[in-house]
């Protein structure tokens, strides 16, 4: 504007001195227009400024009031934070980006024995002169500063008054308002007691694990010690039954068999329960015939039903497909347990086994309810709640009428849970019981190529087989060989694994029945040697089946790992051996 005014002044001065004033007059008028425009802008700025002044002043005043309040709040928060930090038992400290202490709470200062003023600017080892580094704590701090990482539960050792103090520390970066890392915050807490407890806990765990091993060993040994003589008793009873006996002798033999079978079922229950407890039982999905499952279950109790003149009814709802998918072995086990109880506690009347559909849980899944209903003594109301517990027997008198381990229902409940179902009972004292359970069964891919068991076929094959029985126990030798010979097999004997291996080298047997626990060389080693021999010298594979009194899952796993093809727990019924051989030889 100053320039325009100067130019205008010059032009006005020259107008009187020039002979052509019109041009200058026109230029002066232009300057005046420009001046007018500049003045209008200034005028606008002034009036706008005045208008804005009130608003901007108000904004400024309010903002400064807000800032003052914010500052006051900040100071209050700072005081509160300090009180909070000072009341914490944990050691809290702030370090700058050079990892020098900047601020710490009371617990930290008390622990380190220095004042806040003395602490400021010092590094870790200047504060804790006897710092005992574990791992790379200082490197961790550097990576907090450089990379903004967080670390949790970093273990450290500090020394105080000659005692080792264990601490856990969390470290986190501290950033300014632009996000730049300006230091770190550390929080440490004493875990010395925790460490002590951990050591104690570790020791207790080792003891517990050792205890578990001892328990397993005890079960293995008990299994072996009980099953071996039982095998003898049952085998001999089987052979005795084939001889000429008078009625009284047959009655005694029957009692002997019953007691033996009862003892076997007790041992089996204990092992099944132990396997379920250890979660070793894994359900499988296999197509099976529902009707056959129910028929076979009832068939197992044919003699007992006859004995008590009990009627057996099977009621299978027609809407349940004939073939369905689930775990037939586990389902059979539950049904046998329930049926066994029904037979046990019913003196007259009927035992009904029922299967009815409940609902379609998904497109390919059917919830089926199985029931075993009897007309027996029933269950008093007060016992229903404890019925499915372990080792529960309602008759606890010393003169027990009904025998059992009290594990049957507990086992059934565990299996039903495993199969994702429910189990329960409806009963009235003196008025019968109805035990039921539901399980989801699959309707998917039901095509089954199941080859049905054919005993005749396997017996025909066995007649052509050369069989070696490797067994140290004379009674068992006798029982097993007699059983097989009765079916037309040629059985040779070996007293231990070493002899068994030597005999196999001399004659290539088709089937070897191998005991596990034997003197000189056990069955596992003998099997390994046979397999090595087969692999290196001959291209052949003999069927080796373990016959063991050790019935735990790990025993079976060990046998299979050594190279055996199958496993039978002693005492076994001839039928079980034939079925296993059928599965091994014909099915495969």
């Amino acid at each position, binding site marked *: 504007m100053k320039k325009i005014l100067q130019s205008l002044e010059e032009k006005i001065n020259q107008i009187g001195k020039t002979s052509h004033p019109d041009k200058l007059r026109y230029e002066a008028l232009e300057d005046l227009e420009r001046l007018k425009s500049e003045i209008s802008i200034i005028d*606008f700025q002034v009036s706008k400024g005045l208008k804005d002044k009130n608003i901007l*002043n108000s904004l400024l005043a309010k903002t400064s009031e807000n800032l003052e309040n914010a500052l006051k709040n900040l100071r209050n928060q700072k005081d509160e934070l300090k009180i909070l930090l000072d009341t914490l038992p944990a050691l809290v400290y702030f370090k700058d980006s050079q990892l020098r202490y900047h601020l710490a709470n009371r617990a930290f200062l008390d622990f380190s024995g220095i004042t806040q003023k003395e602490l400021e600017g010092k590094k870790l080892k200047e504060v804790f002169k006897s710092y005992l580094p574990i791992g790379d704590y200082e490197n961790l701090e550097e990576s907090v500063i450089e990379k903004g990482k967080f670390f949790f539960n970093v273990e450290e050792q500090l020394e105080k008054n000659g005692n080792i103090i264990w601490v856990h520390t969390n470290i986190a970066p501290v950033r300014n308002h632009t996000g730049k890392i300006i230091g770190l915050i550390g929080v440490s807490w004493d875990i010395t007691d925790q460490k002590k407890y951990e050591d104690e806990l570790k020791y207790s765990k080792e003891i517990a694990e050792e205890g578990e091993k001892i328990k397993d060993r005890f079960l293995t040994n008990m299994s072996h010690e009980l099953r071996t003589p039982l095998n003898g008793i049952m085998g001999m009873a089987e052979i005795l039954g084939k001889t000429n006996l008078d009625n009284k002798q047959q009655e005694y033999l029957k009692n002997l068999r019953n007691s033996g079978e009862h003892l076997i079922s007790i041992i089996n229950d204990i092992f099944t329960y132990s396997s379920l407890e250890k979660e070793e039982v894994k359900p499988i999905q296999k197509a099976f015939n529902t009707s056959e499952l129910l028929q076979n279950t009832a068939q197992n109790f044919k003699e007992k039903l006859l004995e008590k003149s009990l009627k057996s009814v099977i009621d299978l709802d027609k809407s349940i497909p004939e073939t369905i998918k689930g775990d037939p072995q586990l389902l059979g086990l539950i049904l046998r347990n329930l049926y066994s109880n029904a037979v046990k506690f019913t003196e007259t009347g009927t035992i009904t086994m029922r299967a009815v559909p409940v609902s379609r849980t998904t497109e390919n899944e059917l919830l089926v309810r199985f029931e075993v209903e009897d007309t027996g003594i029933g269950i008093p109301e007060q016992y229903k709640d404890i019925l499915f517990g372990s080792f529960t027997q309602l008759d606890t008198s010393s003169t027990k009428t009904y025998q059992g381990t009290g594990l049957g229902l507990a086992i059934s409940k565990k299996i039903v849970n495993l199969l994702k179902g429910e189990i329960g009972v409806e009963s009235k004292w003196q008025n019968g019981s109805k035990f039921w359970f539901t399980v989801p069964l699959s309707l998917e891919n039901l095509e089954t190529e199941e080859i049905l068991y054919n005993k005749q076929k396997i017996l025909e094959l066995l007649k052509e087989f050369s069989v070696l029985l490797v067994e140290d126990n004379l009674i068992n030798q006798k029982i097993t060989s007699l059983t097989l010979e009765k079916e037309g097999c040629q059985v040779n004997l070996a007293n231990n694994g070493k002899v068994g291996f030597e005999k196999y080298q001399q004659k290539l047997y088709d089937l070897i029945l191998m005991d596990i626990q034997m003197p000189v060389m056990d069955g596992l080693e003998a099997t390994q040697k046979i397999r090595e021999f087969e692999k290196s010298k001959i291209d052949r594979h003999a069927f080796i089946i373990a016959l063991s009194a050790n019935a735990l899952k790990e025993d079976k796993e060990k046998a299979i790992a050594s190279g055996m093809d199958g496993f039978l727990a002693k005492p076994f019924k001839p039928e079980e051996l034939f079925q296993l051989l059928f599965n091994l030889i014909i099915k495969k």
Partner: protein
Amino acid sequence: MISSFTFVCEIPRDFNSVLKSTLKKIDFKPTLAFCFVSIDFPLKQIMDSFQQYGINLFGTTSAGEILFDSDGDIMLNRGAVLVLTDIPASSFQLQLLKMDNFTQDVFGKEAGEIIKQRFKEPSVLTSFSGLGKNIQAVIDNILIKTRSQLKMYGCLAGDDLKLEKALVFTEKEITDCGAIFLILDDEKIGLNGMTTSGWNGLGTDFTVTHSEENVVSEIDNIPALDFYVNYLNILEEDLPMIGLEYPLMIKHQDGTFSLRAINKIDKEKRSLIFSSSIKSGTVFSFSASPGFEILEKTREKVIAFYEKNQSADLMFLYSAVARQLATGPLINTEIKLAAIKWRVPLVGCFNYGEIAKDNDQPSKFYNQSFTLALLTEKPAPSL
């Protein structure tokens, strides 16, 4: 190339004769006219004239009219500013929609459906009336129906700062609560644009503690109207006018911000009404124009935009009325910054809100902005 002819009419009673003489003067047959006009003009007369000549009319009342003619002169606030064009009728569809009792969602979706159906690749010039309506919600719903990258440019019509009732109209229909859409065939008529603001945040942050859609009823737990009046130390009567100059600067979590100017108040409910949703929990500060500095920002943005978009047959300028209030006589300089670059006819208006698609952002509603839209006829594809 689109042929166009711009003219102004300052005296309402002269409108018919001005239009008649203009039509005689031009050497092309106009198909479509754009009119930015003061609310005090007899709009019925304008509409009837165009209907009589069979020319489609895209009309918007304004808070000031803008014209940069072929002689390089800028004319502001002259009553009515018009441009006649020969955009082929097959390349556009003009549609006026009334909001009536529809919600913004339904209205937006209906508009979106119409836009989508007309051309394979549509773009839109639009003007909204309906002060206090949630324009952003309408745009969002249009984009739901069409495509997220639909190009939309336009404004929220003005009423010479009375802030009572704005109008949009065609040669046949008019509404104070609705919108007109000029749907263009983007394969034949190119539409491109930019937007810039320049407002600065002031003071500390506050939080909207209660709101419903575009109506803010509480700020920091204080009735919003009381809060605004008290904080700026103004009288209630100064609103909503002063709200145009001191908008809220909404701070988004990703660090970006948007400006939201008050365009209505509800004295009974002590609430402030905007043209876009402001959710409860929104953090904002007040904002103000830094004065002439905004011109520098406009200059930078225009130059950058020009580098990439040098071709234009006709330009539209939608300038927030607050920019005129903030810069006074220097508003001419800002308009010239844009107009002089392309040296093609420019028409437009001062208004209460702008609609633009800026860079890769979807089309949005803006306040306090300087928004340009360029129209270009695309060459026919060679065989």
